[in-house]
C-alpha cells in the first residue's frame, strides 16, 4: 500500500514539474504521455523505492487525458505570436456540450442512459462496462468525452506504452538490468488501480476508464486472457469502463468481433452501442460551426467557400474527423510566418477546389463502394451515349483487388439471371473460368488483379441484352463436404471401414450400401429420407 501511495505522489510531482516548465506543446495527450514516461522511467531507478513494478511508467499514461486544459490553450495560441500552427489545432473545434455533437441525438441519448444507469447502481455495482463501435470518425470518443464531462467523470485512458522498462527485484543497485514488462500485466494493473485510486491533482471524484488502444497481446493471443480480465474487473473494479472500437472491414481485424463475442457481452452485461457514420445534413451543420470558429481565428484561416465545404462533406463519407482535416487544409491562410510546407499546401488547395467538387480524389477519403453496389454496376452495366462504359471495370477492380476471389464468387453466384441469351452466357462464364484459373496462380500477385479484371470486364461486356427487373442478390455457395462418412453411414458399412474417404464413399458405396442395408432390416429410415431429398 505504501509503495503504491508513493508512486502516486511521485507521479503527481513529475506531472507538476512538467506543467510548471514552460512547454506549450502539452496540449496533445500523446505527446505529454511520452515525455512524462521518459522522465519517470529515467528517474525511477535512481531515486525511488525498489520493488515497484510496472506502476511508475503506467501511471503517467493514465493521467494524460485532461479535457479541461484545452480551452486555456486556445486563448494563448490565438493571441500569442507562435509562427507555427499550434500542435493540436483540432482541439479548438472540439464540441463542448452535447448539443455541439454531430452525432445523432438518439445515440447520444443511449450513451447518456448508460451513464445514468452507472450512476444509479454506483454503490452496488460500480464496474459497469460499455462497448462503443462504429466507423472511424463517427464521433465515438468525442461523445464519450463530452458526456463524461457532463456527468463529472474524470476520464482516464489507457495508452499502450511504447516501452515498459521496469526495475528488477534488486532495484536499488542500478545494474542496468531492466527488462520489458508484460503489457498485459501493465494493462491489468491499470484497470484495477486506475479505477480505484484517484490522482491527487484531480478535483473530480468519479473516474471513467477508457480503453481505445487495445494491448496487442489481447489480439494476438486467445481471448481467454481477456475474459479473465473482464471477470476480474467486474469483481474488483470501482469505476465504469468504456471500450471504443472502430469498425474494420475484415473480420480478422475486427476487434469488436474477436474480443467481444455475444456470450461475453451477455455474461458481463456489456452495453453495446454502435454508432453510425455521420449523416451529411448533420455534418453540414457542424461544418458551419467549424467555419464560425475559424472566423474567430482570422490570423490562420480564411473563410472557405460554400462549394468547398459541400464537396468536403461529400468526400468525407460520414467521417467528421476527416472532414475537419480537409476543412482545415483548404482554409489555411498563407501567412508569411508560416513554414513553407504549410504555405505550399494552402496554395495548392486553391487549385484543388475544382477537382474536389468533381472527383474528390486528391483530398478526402477514397471513394469506397460496397460490395452490393459494385455488383450492381457489374451486372447491370450502364453506358454513356458514346457507348463507353459509365463505370469502368478498372475502377471496380481497383476497389476490390484486396479480395478478388470473394468478388468473383459473388459475380458468379448472381450473373445468370441477368442474361437472356445463352451465347452471351458462354462468353461470360468463359471469362469467369479464365479468371478462376488466374486467381489460382499464386506465384504472381499481379495476376490476381488481372483475373478480377477479366471476370468483371467479361461479365460487363458479354451481356448484350440484359434482363431488367428486381433480382435478389445471392451469396456464393460453399461446398462443405464432410470429410468422413457420418456415424450412421459408418454403422451401415461396419466399423472396419472408418478409413474410407468421403469421395470414395459417395461414388462407390453410398447408394449400394443403402440398398443392401435397407433390405436387411436395419433401421435406416433417416438415411433413406436423406437420399430422397437429394436425389
Amino acid at each position: 500500500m505504501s509503495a503504491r501511495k508513493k508512486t502516486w505522489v511521485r507521479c503527481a510531482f513529475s506531472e507538476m514539474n512538467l506543467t510548471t516548465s514552460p512547454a506549450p506543446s502539452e496540449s496533445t495527450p500523446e505527446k505529454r504521455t511520452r515525455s512524462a514516461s521518459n522522465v519517470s522511467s529515467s528517474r525511477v531507478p535512481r531515486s525511488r523505492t525498489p520493488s515497484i513494478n510496472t506502476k511508475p511508467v503506467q501511471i503517467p499514461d493514465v493521467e494524460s487525458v485532461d479535457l479541461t486544459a484545452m480551452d486555456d490553450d486556445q486563448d494563448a495560441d490565438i493571441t500569442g505570436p507562435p509562427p507555427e500552427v499550434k500542435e493540436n489545432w483540432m482541439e479548438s473545434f472540439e464540441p463542448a456540450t452535447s448539443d455541439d455533437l454531430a452525432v445523432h441525438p438518439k445515440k447520444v441519448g443511449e450513451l447518456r442512459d448508460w451513464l445514468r444507469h452507472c450512476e444509479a447502481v454506483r454503490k452496488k455495482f460500480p464496474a459497469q462496462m460499455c462497448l462503443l463501435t462504429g466507423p472511424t470518425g463517427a464521433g465515438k470518443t468525442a461523445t464519450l468525452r463530452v458526456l463524461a464531462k457532463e456527468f463529472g467523470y474524470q476520464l482516464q485512458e489507457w495508452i499502450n506504452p511504447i516501452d515498459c522498462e521496469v526495475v528488477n527485484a534488486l532495484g536499488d543497485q542500478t545494474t542496468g538490468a531492466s527488462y520489458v514488462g508484460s503489457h498485459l500485466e501493465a494493462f491489468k494493473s491499470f484497470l484495477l488501480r486506475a479505477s480505484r485510486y484517484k490522482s491527487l491533482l484531480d478535483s473530480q471524484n468519479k473516474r471513467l476508464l477508457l480503453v481505445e488502444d487495445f494491448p496487442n497481446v489481447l489480439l494476438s493471443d486467445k481471448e481467454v486472457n481477456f475474459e479473465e480480465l473482464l471477470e476480474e474487473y467486474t469483481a474488483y473494479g470501482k469505476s465504469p469502463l468504456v471500450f471504443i472500437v472502430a469498425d474494420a472491414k475484415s473480420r480478422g481485424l475486427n476487434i469488436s468481433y474477436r474480443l467481444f463475442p455475444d456470450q461475453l457481452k451477455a455474461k458481463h452485461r456489456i452495453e453495446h452501442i454502435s454508432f453510425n457514420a455521420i449523416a451529411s445534413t448533420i455534418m453540414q451543420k457542424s461544418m458551419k460551426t467549424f467555419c464560425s470558429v475559424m472566423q474567430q481565428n482570422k490570423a490562420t484561416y480564411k473563410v472557405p467557400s460554400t462549394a468547398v465545404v459541400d464537396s468536403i462533406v461529400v468526400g468525407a463519407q460520414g467521417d467528421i474527423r476527416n472532414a475537419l482535416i480537409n476543412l482545415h487544409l483548404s482554409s489555411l491562410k498563407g501567412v508569411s510566418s508560416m513554414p513553407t510546407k504549410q504555405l505550399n499546401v494552402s496554395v495548392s488547395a486553391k487549385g484543388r477546389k475544382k477537382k474536389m467538387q468533381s472527383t474528390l480524389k486528391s483530398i478526402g477519403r477514397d471513394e469506397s463502394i460496397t460490395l452490393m453496389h459494385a455488383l450492381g454496376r457489374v451486372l447491370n452495366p450502364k453506358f454513356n451515349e458514346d457507348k463507353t462504359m459509365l463505370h469502368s471495370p478498372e475502377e471496380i477492380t481497383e476497389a476490390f483487388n484486396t479480395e478478388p476471389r470473394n468478388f468473383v464468387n459473388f459475380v458468379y453466384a448472381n450473373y445468370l439471371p441477368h442474361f437472356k441469351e445463352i451465347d452471351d452466357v458462354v462468353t461470360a462464364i468463359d471469362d469467369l473460368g479464365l479468371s478462376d484459373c488466374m486467381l489460382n496462380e499464386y506465384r504472381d500477385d499481379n495476376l490476381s488483379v488481372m483475373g478480377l479484371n477479366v471476370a468483371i470486364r467479361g461479365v460487363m461486356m458479354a451481356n448484350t441484352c440484359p434482363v431488367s427487373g428486381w433480382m435478389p442478390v445471392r451469396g456464393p455457395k460453399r461446398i462443405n463436404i464432410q470429410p468422413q462418412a457420418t456415424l450412421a453411414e459408418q454403422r451401415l458399412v461396419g466399423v472396419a471401414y472408418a478409413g474410407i474417404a468421403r469421395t470414395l464413399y459417395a461414388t462407390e458405396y453410398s447408394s449400394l450400401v443403402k440398398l443392401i442395408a435397407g433390405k436387411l432390416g436395419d433401421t435406416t429410415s433417416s438415411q433413406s429420407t436423406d437420399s430422397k431429398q437429394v436425389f
Partner: protein
Amino acid sequence: MALWVDKYRPRELSKLDFHKDQAANLRNLCKQSDFPHLMFYGPSGAGKKTRIMCLLREMYGSGVERLRSETMTFTTPSNRKVEVMTVSSNYHLEVNPSDAGMYDRTVVIDLIKQVAQTHQIEISGQREFKVIVISEGDELTKDAQHALRRTMEKYVATCRIIISVNSTSRIIPAIRSRCLGIRVAAPNETEIVSILQNTCKREGLALPVELAKRVVDKSERNLRRALLMLEAAKVAKAPFTANQEIPDLDWQVFLRETASQIISEQTPAKLEKIRERLYELLTQGVPPNLIFRGLVEQLVNNCDMSIKAKTLEFATEYEHRMQSGAKHIFHLEAFVAQFMNIYKSSFLSWS
C-alpha cells in the same frame, strides 16, 4: 454386418486372385530387411488397397490388422484447426490428407514428423521403420506434394511411405522418382467373373454367368463396385436369375437425368437449374472429374454427329482449366453453357 467386399478381401499376398506374378514380386520385396517408398497406381477398384494391406501383413505379421481409428487435429499456420481421421495399427498409419482440403500440406508435414520422430521401442524381429499409407495421393495439392518430398528424404530412416494413387499424372516428378511404382491394373472380365462366382459359392448362392457378365459391364471393371452391385442385387432378389435387374449408382442416374435436361432446353434459366444439380452432386462428395466425365459421355451419346467433335473439343479445354482452377463449378458450368450454345445453334440451322 460385413459387406462382401470386406468379408472376402484377401488378407495375404499368396491368396490374391489376380496379378499373381506381381504378388510374388512383392513377397520377394518383403524378404529383404528394407524396402523403398512405394507408389501403387491403377484405377479405382483394382485392388491397390488390398495389396498394400497384404504387403504390410507380410512384413509385420497379423499385428497390422488390429486397427484403431482416431481423429487427429492439426493446426495450420493460420491457426485453423483441421481434423483428419486416421486408421492405424502399431506398425502403420493410414491417412487421407485430401480430407483436409487446402490444408493438406500441414497434415502431411505434421503427421510424418509425428510418426517419424517416434522410434519403435521393440525392434526384435520387427522392422525399424513405420509405414505411412497415404490414400488418394493424387488429390494432394502441389504444395503438399513438395512438402512431402522433403519430409520423405529427411525421415527415410524411420518411416516409409506408401502412396496409393489413381493416376501418376498428377504426382510431381520429384515424388514419382522417389517411389517404386507398382501398377495395379484393373482385373479383366474373366478374372472378375471368376471372383464373383467364387464369392457366391462361399455364400452358398448360384450365379448365372450371364448375370456375372452384366455386372462386370455395369461396374466398368471396378471390382469393388461389382461386388457391391452383386450384393445389392442379391438383396433385391435372392436366388439370382440371368436377366434380373442390377441396381445403378444413384449419382450416375442423377447425372443421366441432368444430361437429358440439358438437351431438352437451352436457356440461361435452365442453366441455373443445372447449376443447382451440379452443386448437389458436389456437396454429396462426388469428385468433379467424375462428374465431368459422366456428363460428357452422356451428352456425346445423345447428340448429333456433327457437334460431337466440337463438344469434345470444349470438354478437353474446360477439363484442363478445371484442373488448374479452384472453383470446379465454374468450369462445369462453362462446359454446359458451351454445349447448350452449340446444340442450340446446330438445332436452329437444321430447321
